[in-house]
């Protein structure tokens, strides 16, 4: 009899433990898992995408989450390279089982993980990704950024309008930077001459001979298309040291505030593209204030950091309306028009690209102003 009671006691005990564990574990699944792939370390980390995304998620969670459920951010450091991004996405998809990945946060990352997301029907919403190769990649692949193909056109129109014809183009060999250079080359060849067209690999720390070639080519305009902002400063410095008087144009990366602000005199007169957006809009000011409060620094990359932040709200809205389901979110994103965010109005076109426009800015008396 005693033995029987003991057995019964154990059965009850085991059942209780199982039930308690079930409750505990079902409790932890009461969150929406959202993956993040982006540079958390390395030169591209200074875009602040991770900080912006975390800020947005904290904000949503503080207000009660998405219809009562909290968002759980699982972040993987893509370091802006294919290898780390793929490793991160693999973990997010197969181990964590996320349905949505925010990322990549630069073209090399986004392109590397896109087929993985597509095959596994995981929504991928990239930001800071402008490579034309990313357009129309697949059903589940989206971005908030525009395709950079438009930048080349804006620059070549400006060069033409100024009456220059001899252009040197130096670009970093990456999926983002090269297409801009290639587009500009096509544009310039319609009215002028590309006297120098060359590439450099990421991490190059000396441009003296490239600069010597540019000086020799007699270029009136030098267009720099880097991926990481580090190179801009060194190229411009070495151009000046070798006595180049060519006017400097750059892609949107060259417009890095922190680099220009530290050395405004050497960038005087540089003209660069930037996505048109209003840095005085109420939503952007609110975002930049929160960012500064939380991290103690200014938003490092204006539009780009802001769009990483906006992407979180877009996804939260999608989950809120259509549930935590890849096809539901896909339907929401495909129909997205006129979303008002801190980086401006976001719509998504048929190629799943963000619809944005570019304008030109310049450094005048040490300040970044609109180029007229």
């Amino acid at each position: 009899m005693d033995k029987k009671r003991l057995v019964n006691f154990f059965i009850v005990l085991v059942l209780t433990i199982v039930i308690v564990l079930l409750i505990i574990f079902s409790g932890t699944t009461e969150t929406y898992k959202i993956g993040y792939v982006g540079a958390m370390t390395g030169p591209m980390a200074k875009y602040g995408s991770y900080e912006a995304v975390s800020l947005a998620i904290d904000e949503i969670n503080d207000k009660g989450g998405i219809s009562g459920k909290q968002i759980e951010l699982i972040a993987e450091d893509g370091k802006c390279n294919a290898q780390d991004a793929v490793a991160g996405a693999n973990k997010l998809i197969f181990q964590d089982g996320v349905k949505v990945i925010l990322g990549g946060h630069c073209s090399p990352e986004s392109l590397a993980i896109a087929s993985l997301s597509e095959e596994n029907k995981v929504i991928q919403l990239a930001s800071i990704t402008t490579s034309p190769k990313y357009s129309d990649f697949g059903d589940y692949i989206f971005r908030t950024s525009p395709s950079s193909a438009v930048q080349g056109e804006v620059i070549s129109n400006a060069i033409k309008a100024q009456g220059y014809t001899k252009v040197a183009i130096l670009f970093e060999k990456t999926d983002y930077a090269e297409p801009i250079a290639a587009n500009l080359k096509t544009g310039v060849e319609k009215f002028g001459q590309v006297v120098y067209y060359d590439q450099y690999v990421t991490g190059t720390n000396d441009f003296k001979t490239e600069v010597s070639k540019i000086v020799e080519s007699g270029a009136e305009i030098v267009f720099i298309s880097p991926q990481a902002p580090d190179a801009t400063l060194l190229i411009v410095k070495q151009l000046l040291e070798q006595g180049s008087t060519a006017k400097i144009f750059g892609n949107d990366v060259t417009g890095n505030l922190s680099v220009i602000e530290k050395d405004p005199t050497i960038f005087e007169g540089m003209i660069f593209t930037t996505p048109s957006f209003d840095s005085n809009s109420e939503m952007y000011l609110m975002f930049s204030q929160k960012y500064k409060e939380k991290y103690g620094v200014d938003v490092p990359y204006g539009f780009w950091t802001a769009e990483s932040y906006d992407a979180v709200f877009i996804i939260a809205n999608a989950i809120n309306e259509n549930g935590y389901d890849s096809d539901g979110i896909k339907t929401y994103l495909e129909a997205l028009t006129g979303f008002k965010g801190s980086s401006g109005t976001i719509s998504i076109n048929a190629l799943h690209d963000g619809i944005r426009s570019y304008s030109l800015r310049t450094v005048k008396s040490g300040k970044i102003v609109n180029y007229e």
Partner: protein
Amino acid sequence: MLFQVFVNAMIVGSIYALVAVGFVLTYTTTKFLNFGHGATVALSAYLFLVSFDYVGYFGAFIVACLSAVLFNFVVYQFLYKRLMGKKASKVILLLVSFGVLIAVESIIQIVFSASPRRLNVPIVEGLNLFGAKITGIQIFIVIITILILIAVWIVMKKTKVGLGLRAIADNPDLAEVYGLNSKKIIVASFMIAGVLGAIAGMAISLDYVITPTVGTGYMIKGFVGAVTGGLNTVYGSIFGSYVVGLFENYGAWFFNSGYKDAIAFFLLFIMLIIRPQGLFGIKKGIRG
């Protein structure tokens, strides 16, 4: 214009040479490839740049130099020496030295942020030297490099420390038998390498833009230079470094600048295949 390319190659070659010589010195005494030397270079570059604003060129140089020597001393005493005492293999030591490099780079990034930094001096157009442009700072770098390298050569050939270094490199056991304290000589080699690393860091700070990973890039090029010239010869590694500079820059001039790194490594492979001991290397010991 080809002379301009030569000038460009001499400037960057000088920096590779400074890195290579420090690296070669510790290699000859310990026989392991100390990639942690890149950390010494990066640390000095940052400390020079930061302290320059407060104490000027000379003061900043002293700061960088003392810190680099102290850093090398501490890393050797607390890390490499203990591992060597435990008979760690050369591969383990190589991996540990990579660890030192990565750890220091990460600390630099945390402390100084990842943003590129430039020494707070105005940028001026270079002087005209037979049609090539070269700035005063760049002339200074080339001259100081040559002077330093002559000094190292004299130390190696004419002083007791130099004799000790060469003896240890040649046959550590025999050197011990003759009463040389090999531990002291190894410490000395690390400290001299610290001074050379600091000068390399200073030169990089003076003429380039630095980021936390600055040490890795120059360390690899310095290594290629050292292998090209001979890992166990001081003047060979200097010569090799200038060869790397020349190959890279003429390669970028005649072909395509995207191939710059590829050219450097192509040179490394060729050397390893046809002359593994380097242009001036010998199979055992060290040359001055």
